[in-house]
């Protein structure tokens, strides 16, 4: 049993001048979670749900500094008074980022890691690894390099490590953020297994559709407090209108119309011809003999992990120098390797593409050399204004929130006068409100005459703004069709990709 009694917590963080300030995260929280319960915590970013996870697994107060009041009791003992490695025996944790939660380089050692730290008998650990592999289907992943696994596979190993250690309470902090629908389905099966084993599960999530049949309670957080509670029954019956009013993601998934081939005449098109690229291993790559896409629209690129979506985007952007093929549009014919001059990609981890010390400088860096120097700043400010970021012009890009960084990156793409803007998973890990904001930005880009291609697993984003769907599988074109608006809000079911 977990008892959170009158808990308030404020993180100690540095403000813009580097002075320590307190940022309140949860206030007067009272929550009792019984053994075997399955609790879903949701709410917009910064609402306090992650803080609740950290209060339970002991990272607060043992890792994060701040002011804590009240007490968090696990089976009667206060987490704050126990060393964190003792709490670790009772509480297993799975985190958001699959890349940063493994300590070992090989998968089998990683599975054993928690149990080894507890000093269990090696023979018993080996048996437990076999048992967990059988139940969770981990066998194909054993004895492999962590660095060669996909995000979904890494997350499966993270769950496996918890399963081998076998704690009675499991805390998951946005585990689905970086997963595709297959990965989420695997995660759902693991959660189902834990529920059936009678474990207490606490999961903080934005995406709710895969938790519908699992949750005993859904807690909606707002400003560090529990704003609403739903029973599992009530949760699964929430309609699309209700979730949208509550500002949370929907409980079902939108479904799209069948694969009607794109036959309607389109005035302006981007045509790809003979596009081909393969990696050094000769196994992976893309091969697209011919493809026509509507110019000036929002095109969603979908497909499973490993289907070649990113490779396609990188090739279209001209980042793969050795790629073959040409692209025609507006009477121009450009070889794929020269597309860098026309395309701009917003990467999934936007931190990788911000280099300078201020937001304005970031945009100035992108403005073509051909502009006279007295016009450059005006143009940069105009690009920022389009994205509502002008008031941040003097800030350091790294001091911005994730969504703001993304806008700065998009603004620099606009400043660079690129015609085609590609975005790689712009909404992974975003709450409902921020997802809607991204959709608005994409529509704004479209209104400004840009062609927008967006790689995404987020069906809700597609339902919000996409005009066209490009479906890739195994590095090849699987389907290419316009989104039929009428069909989007049709029957709610699991997605078809």
């Amino acid at each position, binding site marked *: 049993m977990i008892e959170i009694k009158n808990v308030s917590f404020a993180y100690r963080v540095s403000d813009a001048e580097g002075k320590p300030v307190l940022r309140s995260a949860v206030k007067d929280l009272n929550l009792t979670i019984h053994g075997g319960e399955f609790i879903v915590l949701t709410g917009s970013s910064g609402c306090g749900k992650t803080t609740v996870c950290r209060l339970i*697994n*002991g*990272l607060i107060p043992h*890792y994060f500094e701040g002011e804590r009041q009240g007490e968090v009791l696990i089976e009667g003992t206060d987490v704050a008074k126990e*060393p*964190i*490695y*003792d709490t*670790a*025996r009772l*509480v*297993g*944790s799975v*985190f958001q980022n699959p*890349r*940063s*939660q*493994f*300590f*070992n*380089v*090989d*998968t*089998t*050692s990683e599975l*054993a*890691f*928690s*149990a*080894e*730290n*507890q*000093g*269990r*008998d*090696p023979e018993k*650990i080996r048996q437990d*690894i076999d048992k967990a592999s059988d139940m969770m289907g981990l066998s194909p992943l054993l*004895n*492999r*390099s962590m*660095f*060669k696994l996909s995000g979904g596979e890494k997350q499966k190993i993270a769950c496996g*490590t918890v399963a081998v*250690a076998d704690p009675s309470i499991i805390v998951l902090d946005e585990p689905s953020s970086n997963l595709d629908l297959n990965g989420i389905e695997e995660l759902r099966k693991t959660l189902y297994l834990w529920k059936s084993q009678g474990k207490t599960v606490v999961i903080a999530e934005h995406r709710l559709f895969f938790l519908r049949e699992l949750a005993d309670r859904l807690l909606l957080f707002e400003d560090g407090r529990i704003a609403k509670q739903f029973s599992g029954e009530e949760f699964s019956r929430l309609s699309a209108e209700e979730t949208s009013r509550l500002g949370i993601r929907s409980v079902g998934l939108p479904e799209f119309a069948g694969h009607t081939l794109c036959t309607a005449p389109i005035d302006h098109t981007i045509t790809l011809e003979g596009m081909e690229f393969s990696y050094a291993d000769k196994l992976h790559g893309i091969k697209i003999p011919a493809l026509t896409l509507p110019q000036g629209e929002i095109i969603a690129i979908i497909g499973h992990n490993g289907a070649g979506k990113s490779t396609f985007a990188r090739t279209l*952007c001209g*980042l793969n120098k050795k790629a073959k093929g040409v692209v025609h549009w507006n009477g121009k014919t450009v070889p794929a390797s020269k597309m*860098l001059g026309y*395309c701009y*990609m917003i*990467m999934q*981890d936007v*931190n*990788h*593409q911000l*280099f*300078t010390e201020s937001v304005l400088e970031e945009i100035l*860096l*992108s403005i073509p050399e051909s502009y006279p120097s007295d016009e450059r700043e005006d143009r940069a400010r105009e690009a920022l204004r389009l994205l509502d970021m002008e008031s941040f012009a003097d800030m350091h890009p790294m001091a911005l929130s994730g969504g703001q960084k993304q806008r700065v990156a998009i603004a620099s793409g606009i400043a*660079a006068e690129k015609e085609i803007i590609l975005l790689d998973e712009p909404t992974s890990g975003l709450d409902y409100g921020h997802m809607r904001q991204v959709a608005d930005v994409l529509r704004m880009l479209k209104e400004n005459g840009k062609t927008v291609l967006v790689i995404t697993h987020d069906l809700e984003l597609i339902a919000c703004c996409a005009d066209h769907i490009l479906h890739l599988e195994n590095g090849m074109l699987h389907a290419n069709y316009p989104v039929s608006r009428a069909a989007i809000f049709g029957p709610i079911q699991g997605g078809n990709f």
Partner: protein
Amino acid sequence: MQTTVLTFKESGMRAPLDPRTSLYSILIISMIMIGGSLSGVEYWLRFGCCILPLVLLLAMRNLRFAMVYFGLYAFAMLMEGTIIQLTEGFFNLILVMIAGLISRFLAPMVMGYCMMQYTTVSEFIAAMERMHVPQAITIPMSVMFRFFPTISEENSAITEAMRMRRVNGTQRGLMKRMEYELVPVLMSTVRIADELSQASLTKGLGGHVKRTHICEVGLRWQDYLLLLLLTAALVLFMVY
């Protein structure tokens, strides 16, 4: 891509040598190769020492590397043995330098590389604990080697972003270019390190209980044989 990055073994069977034997070999090979002279007993000791990494490379079926290694040593030994005496002046100086660098440093480095290739992080930690090395040293060391592939992943993503933004050249100056590259690399590795510490804490790393290991570490006949040979070599090296 990651195979070229310095890190511990990523998968597979038990290492052919215990990490302790490997560390001892690196130490002895370094002493003899770097400090040894080119004549008498020491010539033969050095010869023996540069054979060991070759045997390991062959045992790991890394044929291409083994051939390069063999070629480089054949070249260096040939130079040191004969051609240096036949040349003079500047050319001689260059040859002495190149041959000397190769013959003195290559073997210890390749021995280190081999150890990394066949030892997993957990085998390494387990062996260090058997030697009673405190966790304060073993944990940072193992994290460091887990981090090299991470940095290389981050770095390749950032280089790509720089190409897209056309700031990958040095037209804005070398310092600017380095800043553009290093700042995001540092930012993201710091973030990953932070998240990794959180994950390790919730997995109970650093407790007072004695850790156990599912990997098998322990000295086997090949370890004893090698330890004996290396110690004999060390004694000979010291005496002569």
